[in-house]
């Protein structure tokens, strides 16, 4: 169902199928853990199967999480005086 829903075509019996199946099964375990922190009534996040469920966390990080952060000055009341404008 996942393959159909997200337009994947992994041939059963191949290495790729095994890898993706393992990543998918790990995702299901992860969802259980993540959802155990959710409480009814306060709008907590829900976690489950989506288009990334056949990726391992490392693969997901390598593909999609490529931003680096930079240190910025802490905001203070006087900061508004120094907009970086010509």
């Amino acid at each position, binding site marked *: 169902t996942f393959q159909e829903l997200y337009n994947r075509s992994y041939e059963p019996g191949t290495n790729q199928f095994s890898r993706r199946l393992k990543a998918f099964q790990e*995702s299901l375990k992860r969802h259980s853990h*993540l959802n155990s922190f*959710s409480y009814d009534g306060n*709008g907590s*996040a*829900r976690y489950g199967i989506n288009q990334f469920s056949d990726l391992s966390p490392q693969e997901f990080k390598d593909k*999609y999480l*490529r931003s680096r952060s930079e*240190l910025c000055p802490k905001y203070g009341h006087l900061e508004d005086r120094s907009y970086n404008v010509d």
Partner: protein
Amino acid sequence: LPSRFDWRDKNVVTPVRSQQTCGGCWAFSVVEGIETAYAVKGNPLVKLSVQQVIDCSYRNQGCNGGSTISALYWLNQTHVKLVKESEYPFKAVTGTCHFPPSSFGVSIKGYVAYDFSDREDVMMEKLIEFGPLAVTVDALSWQDYLGGIIQHHCSSQEANHAVLITGFDRTGPVPYWIVRNSWGASWGNEGYVYVKIGENVCGIADTVSAAIV
């Protein structure tokens, strides 16, 4: 401050995009912020070229990664005019920087960049004053996100993803930021994710920036 505010309600936010397998989230958040800042000034809402920033922002690594602050620094230093997306379309791979002949372009006059951790109240004011805010977050657990308000499972000071805050909502028991992502409209809440306000969840207030158009 209003209890709820979202730049989408003013019709100045372009539709959610997909970065596909290109690690150019940093460029998406910056360009999408400029699109809205430009429209807020009374101009038409125009889709600007993310690919132009991916290809040309030399202090970054294109689809291999980059930073919102570096991109804004580059835009501010060079006064490059961002062309329309239709003239410099997204290819999902880093390409050669080029300058299509175009009479239209949007450049920035400056930018602001601050750490608002422990000052998310002020950050809400700045969202209204400047327009959408480009932020970096720890989004590792977002791989599995379906909807609702993120309150756990991520860290501050470990940012790895850039997104754009378009609004906030404080009408319910848990106040939250309304955050635009670049993983397509089928992810999360029609492409958006909600992050709890007030505890610097996922480091959302650590690196906050906005372009001035």
